[in-house]
């Protein structure tokens, strides 16, 4: 989720850091590229395939698509999982926006 937000915001500080962390976790380079380019990949599990587009929708706070994605998540996740997803999205946005500011990127 953080990698998606970093790419959406063009944060060149967070993007390589997160990508490296994902590689260390065992995510294949091709899968990561596919996810970041098209927001989906066959290797993702059904929950991850919901989380990735949700992360993207949190970047610019467009209410309609964000709510639509959040409803899809709500229907599939437990309460604590949903809370965690929202928390990670918030963290990702804060982190990547600060990262973008550090590199003097105009958001």
């Amino acid at each position, binding site marked *: 989720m953080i990698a998606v937000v970093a*790419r*959406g*915001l*063009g944060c060149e500080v967070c993007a390589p850091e997160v990508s490296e962390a994902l590689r260390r976790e065992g995510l294949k380079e091709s899968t990561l590229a596919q996810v*970041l*380019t*098209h*927001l*989906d990949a066959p290797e993702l599990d*059904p929950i991850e*395939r*919901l989380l990735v587009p949700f992360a*993207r929708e949190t970047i*610019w706070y*467009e209410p*309609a*698509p964000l709510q639509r994605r959040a409803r*899809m998540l709500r*229907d*599939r996740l437990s309460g604590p999982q949903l809370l965690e997803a929202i928390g990670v999205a918030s963290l990702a946005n804060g982190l990547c926006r600060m990262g973008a500011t550090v590199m003097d990127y105009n958001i």
Partner: protein
Amino acid sequence: MTGPFVVVPLLVLLAGFAVAIYRQWRQNQTLKAQLEAIATDLQHLQQSCSRLVPAGVLQHLIADGVKSGIEAAAPERKVVTVLFADLVGSTAMSDRLEPAVLARVLNGYFQRMSDAIHEHRGHVAHFLGDGIVAYFGALQPNPWQCNDAVRAALAMRAALREYNVELGREGLPLLALGIGIDRGLGLVGLVGSRERMEYDFVGRTVNVAARVQTLTRIHQADILVTEALSVELDSRFVLTPMPAELVKGIAEPVVTYAVREGPSDAAPAEEAGER
């Protein structure tokens, strides 16, 4: 004996304070009411402006505060995806329908198309007669702009299909659409004269998208994308290559792809259930 000499001036002083506080309170209430009225006016003004200017542009201008328009949104180079849509046979339709009916039909069409574009993170830059020019990735960075633009085109196709059912029920002529999409580098920002400015994208891509849209009639396909755009698309979009064609203003023949269908936007489990 000192009692009245102390109490009376104290009471007068207190009364004076009370009057001053009351006056201040009334003044505050008046200022508060004025502030609320101004805020309401501003809100109405912003709502009215957002009908004329994309909300994102308005936010840019408001955020840039007192800077002049030109300084605030100085053009910058960006890769943008341009969607150009045009109604097929609209001239014949405009001759046949009463002006009020024609306006209603067109407004219904524009509303549905704009909704589909906005839903996929695009913004309508211009209505050109019955044509629509929309940009993806112009207002905000959007690395997924190509997929978004083609998804928007597919949503426009679906919305027009639904609208045609309504029009058919009323005995009105059915609408057909041609969409051309291209992506490329150009200048984005406020351009125009001191009296009238527009937030626009200037570049070859706009021209190519418009020309590709004219090819929809030749290729009998409602959505065509350029080769430059097709290579950026998710491989799950179903594309059919079309023969290269020469178009006005472009030296080389243009290779296009007809978009048949795209990946589902539904939740993965729903998607799996549908197959």
